[in-house]
């Protein structure tokens, strides 16, 4: 994952992705982490300074893959 260089954002993003991967790996309940991912993306999007970070640093694809895996967990 490409870091954007804004420490707070990178730290939060890393923690969310790590937690999401753990939920996928352990086949745990995905609802909570899906909400965290959406909230984080909303926070970035609702600010003109950060709205393009997820596109410009290639995070959109990472989230899409994780959300896809997590959604399977919520269905089963």
């Amino acid at each position, binding site marked *: 994952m490409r870091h*954007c*260089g804004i420490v707070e954002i990178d730290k939060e993003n890393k923690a969310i992705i790590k937690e999401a991967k753990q939920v996928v790996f352990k086949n745990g309940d995905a609802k909570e982490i899906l909400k965290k991912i959406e909230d984080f993306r909303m926070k970035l999007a609702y600010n*003109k300074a950060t*709205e*393009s970070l997820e596109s410009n640093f290639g995070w959109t694809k990472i989230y899409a893959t994780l959300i896809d895996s997590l959604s399977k967990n919520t269905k089963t």
Partner: protein
Amino acid sequence: MINKILLSAILISFSIVVRGNFPSIENSHLVKSIYSDSLKNNEDSLTYLANTYSLDSAELKAFLSDFRSKQLAIFYEQKSTVAAWRVCIADDSLRTQNIVLQKTAKFLHRNQHKSEYLKNEFQNTSKGQRSIFLLRTWWADSLKSNFDSLGNSSGFRTWGIDIKEIKKSLLDDMKAEASAPQFVESLINSGKNVPKKIIPNVGYALYKIIPKGNPPPSPFTPFWTKIEDLQTVVSNDLEDKFGLPIVSHSAKYDVYKIQLKEGKKAILFESEIAPTTENGYKTNGGSTQTLVLDRAKWTFPVLINELEIFPPFKK
């Protein structure tokens, strides 16, 4: 090679000084021979450069023809100069100009992954517009290099209306419409005045510009604009009027469109775009932004190729 040219110059000067005359026939043979040697040396150096950059046979032919009788110092002074020439290969006039090679090489040095994009975009630009395309490419890159070298807009700030100036009822309406009400307050400052409520009809369309070739906009971004607001600024300092962060400055722009889905009711919030600063770089804003606070009611953004924007160069 330089020594040979120097020697030739000395011989000519010597001939003029000693005999008060131009070089003798023997000396002019020598000069021709030296000139022919220097061409041979140039060709050897060019072939070496071409091999280093894996130019194909057609490129090699054009490369030798362009530089056989020219000084080659430019290729050794700056890395990526051959790559810059290759990017501009579609234009036999621009590709041999030192300034074009130097500035394009500088761009490629900082944006190594953009070589193919730049080559294709340069080629797809009409001949008369290619210099404008390059000027805008260098301009946007120089802004990034000077004011946002990490490309993360960390120094970007909007200087709009204070949250205290917004009536509670309006803020409540915005929060009620928003899919992320907890972040609505961070939007207020992007506008210069109090947002105006708009009720759009089904099919109502909004647009967003993205640097050409970049990925589509974030699925949650609320920052959109109407087509008439976009058209008004296309030829009139678009980046300044839209208060764009430097990372969103580009030679050309892709335009994405969203529409209100059938059966959905939405409220939009329009305001004048606020001035911005970014590590000393300023924009005035002044165009109109339309805030879409619940993107779930709107279609997925679609790239509209025919609306591509290529503003003039006025800097």
